[in-house]
């Protein structure tokens, strides 16, 4: 546990001392969402229909962008190798890194989400469902994404490859999340979809740290 907190503290401080970068994914998400009303027309009914899907796809894409930086810096300056050599448990350490990354680059997205909902004319019920799915779904995204990010950390051509690897894997999350928001818009309870996303999240918390730890070792070769 001490390893967990020391890595947590270190990454947290690093993120805030290099604060130029961590708002970029959020701004990217905001821009992608802004593009859609311009592309498909400003009719409030249409926007409300496609809104949840757009917000979720934008969140997926911006999380891909953000994830790319998860291990990059540490890999390049060699501190990832030092972390592998520490006697503490590597899965816990990976979990700490993912947690900080989520807090720093995805939490701002949740804070910004009312603005996105406003842009796309979502009702209050829809927004509430959207927020619930984002709270449960984005950590899942970061955890699964971390596996592929760790595997490709040593490659210089990470970006598009990461999308190719991760987007298919994210599909169930997208389906359940948008269907929860759709249920909310019809006034149907959406706890079922939330429960499934929550179950996937718990499953991921239990398993992915081990996969990420192994992937880090692979990238260190």
């Amino acid at each position, binding site marked *: 546990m001490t390893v967990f907190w020391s890595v947590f503290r270190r990454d947290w401080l690093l993120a805030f001392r290099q604060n130029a970068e961590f708002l970029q994914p959020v701004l990217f998400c905001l821009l992608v969402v802004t593009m859609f009303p311009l592309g498909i027309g400003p009719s409030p009914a249409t926007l409300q229909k496609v809104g949840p899907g757009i917000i979720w796809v934008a969140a997926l894409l911006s999380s891909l962008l953000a994830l790319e930086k998860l291990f990059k810096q540490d890999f390049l300056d060699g501190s990832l190798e030092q972390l592998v050599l520490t006697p503490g448990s590597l899965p816990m350490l990976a979990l700490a890194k993912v947690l900080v990354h989520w807090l720093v680059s995805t939490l701002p997205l949740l804070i910004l989400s009312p603005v996105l909902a406003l842009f796309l004319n979502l009702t209050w019920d829809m927004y509430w469902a959207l927020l619930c799915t984002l709270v449960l779904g984005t950590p899942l995204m970061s955890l*699964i994404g971390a*596996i*592929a990010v760790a*595997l*490709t950390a*040593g*490659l210089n*051509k990470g970006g598009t*490859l990461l999308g*190719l*690897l991760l*987007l*298919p*894997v994210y*599909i*169930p999350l997208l*389906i*359940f999340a948008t*269907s929860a928001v759709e249920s909310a818009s019809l006034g149907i309870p959406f706890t079922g979809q939330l429960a499934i996303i929550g179950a*996937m999240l718990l499953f991921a918390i239990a398993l992915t740290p081990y*996969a990420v730890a*192994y*992937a880090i070792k*692979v*990238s260190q*070769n």
Partner: protein
Amino acid sequence: MWKWLHPYAKTEETYALCGRLYPWFLWPAIALLAVGTVWGLAFAPADYQQGDSFRIIYIHVPGAMLSMGLYAGMAILGFIGLVWQIRTCYMGIAAIAPVGAMMTFIALFTGAVWGKPMWGTWWVWDARLTSELILLFLYLGVIALYGAFDDKIQAGKAVAVMSLVGVINLPIIHYSVYWWNTLHQGATISKFDNPSISSDMLWPLLLNILGFGLVAGALACRRLQNEILTREMRRPWAQTLLLSNETGAK
């Protein structure tokens, strides 16, 4: 009990095994496919509802079955490779992935051709079609990941991890899209106790399924041999083999 498996961790032995298996896969496959396809496409009775269009199943169903089977095979190889650190398994993944992607493409393409007269459209966002498409993306991801690394041992471990992630996800993807939207007809031949297909139609289908499986086996063997040779080019055994082949050819 498992002693007979151990030599195959050595690439040289696996190379020889693939060479021995290859004709056993290839020739029965050609025979089965010839009989099954001609029987299915020309002699099996037409469907009372779909007419002659139903004959696409003789290509479509084997392709779809193998697309999933080969992915499972890849994941099993990945698991064995990661647990027992056998690099022949990683090479096997690299050998199988393009074959699986091809089978997935065959299933999607023939499905689209069948969908045009039957559903009146090339493509619908139906559950099975979507999950098959996602399967194709998963295969392409594995192929791209393997290609991205210069160090192929690292690449092998990476694709093993990714194929395992994919295989955990596949059932979730399948059920999520199934729940999301469904138009595809239900299972026909897997209901063994009471199959809803006439035996005249069933036999050529079974022959073709077996034939496709053997073709996939033959291709995988050939590709694995190729992969082993490219990777082990610097090893003495590979060089002796290549030199002897060259003199033999002349």
